[in-house]
């Protein structure tokens, strides 16, 4: 199993930490992982993305241009990464602020209204976990017990009291994700 | 009576300290380096710290200082001695560390390292030989060359409009909170040698206190570079260097000395030397 994922959105949406939690969960499940952020001016321009690869084998390149899954959380990211999903792959987007819907017919497309839901429930801080939950519903590449361990490892000890809230958000995400176009 | 007849222990009035090696110094006759070396070596000997002293030599006339001091020594890249000494001291805090640098090394190419080592309050001793000229490369302008003073690269005398002012880095360093002792001495008379040696001793003793950097400038002559006899050079130094570079303590035990007024620190109009 090798899953190559790009997660992209605005800075502040928790894109990097979502990738880190996913990667750490993979480590806990004894898988090979890599986490490669965009850095530098691109980051300062307000958008942020990270490539996460989880595999049973040695990972070739942490930097790739085609992905099994793209998780895009704003319009710029959808525009930039829609065409990088491998045919038959998965595209997940949050409809909040989206003015141009994805158009590809050769990939599975799902949407998750995580921004809206998180605001409604007053849990904006764990918005990214709602999205992660949606992804894990479709591709359970790491077990939930390892997600728990991943949260423990990637959050500083002073934030460990927030783990239950994070896990709750993941569960909410699993129920929230809906198909737009499937193969 | 043959000369050798008087070489008897009871006639001995002076002997070279064992902290200097037997190597013959390459310095020009009349140069202050030999005397400066000797008083540093004597202080190391008298303090009994030969086995704990690490010296750093510069690029310049004293590049080969390591051949003359019988202590462990490093030869630094041009201007970098304060950075080199910083790490030696940080990693070997029980050692006594000193740099020995000329005006080009310390106050031109190495200005940044000098100021930052002083500003960090490194517990080292810096000995600064200021003779207002680049001796080793053949008498070019130094940052401390006086206004009007001739050199190989200021053949008609240093011009403020072209070359800027003589840099009084010693006064500048005294204003930094990281310096604990800042003084200017000379070694051109026996009385001055005694004072300079006391200053060197204080600068080394201060390392035990761990209160900051000790800086000893030795205003020195360069009779070869100045194209004078040693005696002329000493006289010229008294008449021209000292008014620009007044001798004496500037900062002692972390405090500016009482006679160091703002006017003394900031010399608005450096005195011009007319035709050396």
């Amino acid at each position, binding site marked *: 199993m090798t899953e190559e994922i790009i997660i992209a959105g605005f800075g502040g949406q928790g894109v990097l930490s979502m990738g880190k939690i996913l990667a750490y969960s993979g480590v806990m499940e004894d898988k090979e992982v890599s986490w490669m952020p965009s850095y*530098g001016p691109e980051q300062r321009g307000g958008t942020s993305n990270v490539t996460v690869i989880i595999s049973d084998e040695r990972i*070739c390149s942490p*930097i790739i241009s085609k992905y099994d899954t793209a998780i895009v959380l704003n319009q710029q990211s959808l525009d930039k990464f829609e065409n990088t999903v491998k045919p038959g792959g998965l595209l997940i987007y949050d409809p909040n602020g989206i003015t141009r819907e994805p158009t590809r017919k050769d990939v599975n497309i799902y949407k998750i209204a995580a921004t809206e839901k998180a605001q409604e429930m007053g849990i904006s801080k764990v918005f990214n976990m709602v999205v992660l939950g949606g992804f894990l519903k479709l591709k359970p590449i790491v077990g939930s017990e390892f997600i728990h361990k991943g949260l423990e490892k990637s959050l500083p000890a002073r934030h460990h009291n927030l783990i239950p809230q994070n896990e709750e958000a993941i569960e909410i995400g699993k129920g929230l994700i809906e198909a737009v176009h499937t193969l | 009576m043959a000369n050798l007849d008087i070489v008897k222990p009871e006639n001995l009035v002076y002997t070279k300290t064992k902290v200097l090696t037997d190597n013959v110094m390459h310095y020009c006759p009349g140069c202050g380096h030999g005397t400066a070396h000797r008083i540093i070596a004597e202080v190391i000997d008298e303090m009994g710290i030969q086995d704990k*002293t690490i010296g750093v030599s510069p690029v310049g006339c004293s590049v080969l200082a390591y051949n003359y001091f019988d202590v462990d*020594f490093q*030869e630094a890249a041009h201007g970098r001695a304060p950075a*080199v000494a910083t790490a030696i001291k940080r990693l070997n805090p029980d050692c006594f560390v000193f740099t020995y640098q000329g005006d080009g090394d310390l106050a031109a190419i190495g200005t940044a390292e000098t100021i930052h080592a002083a500003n960090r309050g490194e517990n080292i001793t810096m000995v600064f030989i200021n003779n207002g000229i680049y001796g080793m490369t053949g008498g070019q302008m130094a940052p401390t060359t006086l206004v009007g003073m001739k050199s190989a690269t200021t053949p008609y005398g240093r011009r403020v409009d072209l070359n800027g002012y003589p840099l009084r880095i010693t006064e500048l360093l005294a204003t930094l909170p990281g310096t604990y002792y800042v003084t200017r001495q000379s070694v051109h008379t026996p009385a001055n040698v005694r004072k300079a040696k006391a200053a060197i001793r204080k600068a080394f003793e201060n390392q035990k206190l761990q209160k900051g950097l000790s800086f000893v400038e030795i205003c020195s002559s360069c009779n070869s570079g100045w194209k004078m006899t040693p005696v002329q050079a000493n006289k010229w130094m008294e008449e021209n260097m000292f008014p620009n570079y007044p001798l004496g303590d500037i900062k002692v035990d972390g405090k500016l000395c009482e006679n160091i007024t703002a006017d003394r620190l900031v010399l608005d109009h450096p005195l011009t030397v007319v035709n050396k």
Partner: protein
Amino acid sequence: MAKELKLMKGNEAIARAMIASGTDGYFGYPITPQSEVMETLMAEKPWETTGMVVLQAESELASINMVYGGAATGKKVATSSSSPGISLMQEGLTYLAGAEIPCVIMNAMRGGPGLGTIQPAQSDYFQSVKGGGHGDYQLYTIAPSSVQEMYDFVFDAWDIAFKYRNPVLILTDGAIGQCMEKCYTRDFIPRWTEEERRQHAPWGTWGKPANRSHNIITSLELESSRQEVFNQKLQAKYREMEEKEVRFEALNCEDADYIFVAYGTSARICMKSMELARAKGLKVGLLRLITLYPFPKKQIAELAKKVKGMLCVEMSAGQMIEDVKLAANCSIPIEHYGRFGGIIPSPEEVLEAMEKEIVK
């Protein structure tokens, strides 16, 4: 500190490995994309645990000379920087090589020339292995291509540095520095005791005891005949390194018709390109260079007898290819493919270049 499995950035791995490998001092100056090295060290406060000294210098010029001063006392002293900072350090590096001072320097390469970009590049190859500073000297140059290697190579670097009394350059780039991967950390090696330091560095300036003559660290020799003898000694040392210390990884080279030659981030990309090629039925292998100096000349010469062509992939305009061509004696087609200025090539375009330029 015991062994542990952690997810960490390459830059963080360098810092943690320094602490774990008994490094005595780190002197650095912030520059993107490797500032996390000093940031990690400062956050870890190793001076409270191992006694390691960490200091932010006023410039790279100062930090490399602090390395000189500290390392010349026989202690393990390191620094890190990125391309423009490494350029500033060249004077210090040639002095370190000339005075035969063991030390470790990490360069997280970014795109140049000049201030360039902060994005990853591999355009400092020539600077790293062909001198950089003045004079005939070599830095042992080792190129990690994973976070684990970033960690492990710090340990290896100390062994080589002291074995040969030579500076070691860990040549990496912003991508590996910023990338997070699994990393197995090691048991801490304590910093050397006073006794051990004297044993490992009898030449060090740590204070002259009565029973030895004074140790002098210098690269100055005014007598040319003696300077020549010294240079011959240095060259003999380099030949010994070339003989004994070459490192590389050959992947799928046994049955390969075509070979990628790459190091660091480019090698990782080539691994993917190789996977794509094999899926298409192309017999492609990868020679991943680990040491860039000493360069695996013999291995390339042997491979050149077996394969039909080589593609050198480097995030530069083509620097490493010169050494590959020399080693292969231009006996087979050898081409370069590279992106530069901070652009990382995709595995697909690398494969396409292989098909276009070499397979044809």
